[in-house]
């Protein structure tokens, strides 16, 4: 077994298998507890709620993303760059910030209601949760679908464009059939994310009828102190995810993706410029995304005086520092391990086995939600015969690395494959050491993508809320739990200010480093 794969598996064993095993061994009679819980109506109700809102969120996210992706695919312009940048920012935005923005904009006393003088709101219902999920997932879906549409061979796309069909018919009859596999992958990704939704459900849901299983796991651990029931709910959640993931994996069997050796970043096919109508649609898309954040900005401005003290307090700086430290280490760990893992798979001579195994592993890891992993780590630490100082910090690094690993690995896999295709033989022919070739050629050539992956991991860690809330006490806060505390203390002004600073930081870092577009993945390998 190659070192990269070995390291990856060791990491998974330590950060996932070991804690899960510890949890199962700690909990007596988990099967009995599980059987009892399955019969409880409130568990069935939470399960139904989790599945229905996740399904609807995923469906509408893709349905709304498709037209915008079609508008922007194979075109250049500020609209596309904005779409790419917003996809990264939304990925890093803590879910409770979205909930907060919703309350400020769409709440009964929200800015929108004040503007249109309405006394109705859709908040605190399933609809609000679904709309918030759409907001969070839409930019990512748009970007993903742009990449998928751009993977259609240029000549084929041109031919489609020339057909005398309406946009909707082109989309429905010609584009969607070509990208159904990535669409399904996207659906499953969003579905899993929404099924295990926590922050948005906590802020916009509420009550036993508006709770996901993820929220129940948290409540069972933190409030009821029922480790066994929390574990049983985690197992139930896994049992929902596992067959769905297995089904989708075998239905759309993954093989090594074909890709063009031409990196499509910066090169656009010649389509007609975006029309006014398309621009108007895109503006509405931007408005929908921006409204909650405009509300936060407005609230921050109106409450600047009262919020500034909290913004400059040691508690805020400590929370930001903790988030940065955890993000830095977890993302570094995940990126390094993921890169070593995927490069060994790319080089592997048994690609027919290793690539499907890799895909299966990546999918399988998504069965484990943040709440379940945090619960397992809680159990592991509790069983240690000694006191581990700073355990929550260490545990969060491993948990966040674990949660980022599949996403980063998937992001880097095509990069690694293309690199191997382009330079693999050349490097082998050079008489330099493996270490030299790794650092001087491999890392150098791929540094933009590695940095992009690192940033993504950092963003995911900084915005992660569930595991942090489950493992941290009041003596250890990150930016997400601190925001939650501020909102809970009705210090909306301070929360708004801190959110604004956080968002500007995210935008700034993304812009400063520069986000490379992904490699184009097309079916046509004839052009080399």
């Amino acid at each position: 077994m190659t070192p990269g794969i070995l390291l990856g598996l060791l990491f998974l064993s330590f950060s996932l298998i070991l804690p899960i095993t510890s949890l199962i061994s700690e909990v007596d009679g988990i099967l009995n507890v599980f059987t009892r819980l399955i019969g409880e109506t409130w568990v069935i109700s939470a399960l139904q709620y989790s599945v229905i809102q996740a399904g609807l969120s995923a469906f509408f996210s893709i349905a709304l993303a498709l037209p915008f992706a079609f508008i922007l695919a194979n075109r250049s312009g500020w609209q596309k760059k904005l779409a790419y940048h917003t996809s990264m920012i939304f990925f890093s935005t803590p879910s409770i910030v979205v909930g907060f923005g919703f309350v400020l904009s769409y709440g009964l006393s929200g800015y929108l209601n004040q503007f249109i003088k309405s006394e109705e709101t859709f908040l605190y219902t399933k609809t609000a949760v679904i709309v918030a999920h759409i907001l969070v997932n839409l930019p990512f879906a748009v970007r993903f679908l742009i990449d998928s549409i751009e993977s259609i061979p240029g000549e084929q796309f041109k031919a489609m464009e020339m057909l005398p069909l309406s946009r909707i018919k082109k989309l429905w009859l010609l584009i969607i059939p070509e990208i159904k596999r990535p669409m399904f992958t996207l659906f499953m990704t969003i579905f899993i994310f929404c099924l295990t939704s926590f922050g948005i459900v906590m802020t916009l849901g509420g009550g036993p009828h508006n709770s996901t299983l993820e929220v129940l796991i948290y409540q069972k651990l933190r409030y009821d102190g029922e480790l066994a029931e929390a574990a049983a709910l985690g197992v139930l959640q896994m049992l929902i995810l596992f067959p769905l993931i297995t089904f989708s994996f075998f239905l759309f069997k993954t093989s090594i993706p074909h890709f063009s050796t031409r990196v499509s970043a910066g090169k656009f096919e010649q389509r007609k410029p975006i029309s006014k109508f398309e621009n108007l649609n895109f503006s509405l898309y931007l408005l929908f995304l921006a409204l909650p954040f405009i509300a936060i900005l407005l609230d921050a401005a109106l409450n600047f005086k009262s919020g500034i003290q909290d913004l400059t307090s040691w508690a805020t700086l400590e929370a930001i520092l903790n988030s940065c430290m955890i993000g830095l280490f977890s993302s570094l760990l995940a990126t390094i391990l993921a890169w070593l893992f995927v490069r060994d798979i790319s080089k592997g001579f048994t690609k027919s086995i290793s690539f499907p195994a890799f895909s299966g592993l990546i999918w399988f890891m998504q069965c484990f939600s943040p709440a379940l992993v945090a619960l397992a780590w809680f159990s592991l630490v509790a069983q240690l015969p000694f006191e581990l100082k700073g355990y929550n910090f260490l545990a969060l690094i491993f948990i966040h690395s674990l949660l980022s690993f599949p996403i980063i690995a998937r992001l880097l896999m095509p990069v690694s494959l293309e690199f191997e295709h382009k330079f693999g033989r050349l490097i082998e022919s050079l008489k330099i050491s493996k270490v030299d070739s790794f650092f001087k050629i491999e890392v150098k050539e791929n540094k933009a993508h590695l940095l992009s992956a690192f940033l993504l991991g950092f963003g995911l860690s900084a915005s992660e809320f569930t595991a942090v809330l489950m493992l941290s006490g009041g003596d250890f806060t990150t930016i997400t739990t601190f925001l939650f505390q501020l909102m809970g203390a009705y210090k909306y002004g301070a929360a708004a200010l801190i959110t604004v600073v956080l968002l500007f930081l995210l935008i700034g870092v993304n812009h400063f480093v520069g986000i490379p577009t992904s490699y184009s993945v097309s079916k046509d390998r004839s052009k080399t």
Partner: protein
Amino acid sequence: MQKKVFYFASCIFYLMVSISSFCFAEDQKPILNIYTYLSFTSKWGPGSRIKKKFEAECQCQVNFVSVDDGASLLRRVKLEGKKTKADLVVGIDNILAGEASSSGLFDSAPIQNKLDLAIPSLDKYKDTLIPFDFGWVSLIYNSKKVKRPPSDLNDLLTNPSFKKSLIFSDPVTSSPGLSFLFWLNNEYGDKLGEKLKLLKNQTVTVTPGWSEAYGLFLKGEGGLVLSYTTSEIYHKIAESNQDYKAAFFKTHPVVVEYAGITKSSKQKPLARNFLSFLLTPQIQKIIAENNWMYPAIKTEAISDLNPIFNSFPKPTSTIDSIIEPGLQKKLLNTWRTGYK
């Protein structure tokens, strides 16, 4: 090149700060670890003031560890078991006090000074838990939005003018929410399940904790919120705001907050001193005027307490939320299945 330097420098900076925080965290003074709920230790809560005064007297360091809500305090200590670093737990309410007292987690806590309690029954758990404040659960309403508050629970649940106006905290995750559930159970008994369906029609949202509920209420998301009668005192004194008022019904559940020393504490003498300190008039005043609950000791003993604590109306009849074993779980199950 510049980017590399920037990132390298950032990494070094973060490493230095984190290492220094570990280094400077050490202190020669004995440390008293106190687990309590979040609002107690917040800037506007009594925690920081009490800490300052006690540290000046005891030559020790008080370390507050705050959890989300009182409901999770006991759970956390139970989950941590013998490894808990808590010396004291401050904020266990009367609903969980019975469980806490019989859990074996808390040590005996004889207090040297004679307790002159405001309500004699407050010291029900005097062997293990000491009361430090109490209050009555009620609804607070915004008099600008709600012209006539509900007259009783039935009015709250059935009057169409209160539709989608109530915000309250989840009984699963919040002490006031649980008190509310007991209140409803006391009123309706076996019909609780049906009444929860009516309650849903009147509710804007159910939040994880009291703070979130109150925050949304102040933001204007609802006209009524579940809180304590003393919340009206807070708005009158701290904000000179007369808009927020308490609705008084026939009976109200009382909430008593207790503090106890853990058996695993390595600072028991210091912890006992802290408990005595909590019941001194000067600290009881701080608790009353910052936690916005009634002091556990008689108000006559606190010379400079704001007179509003004496003059403010008190419920004529109280529901004692001391419960029989198993009832809490039963009620929470009813809540989970009935509220839809």
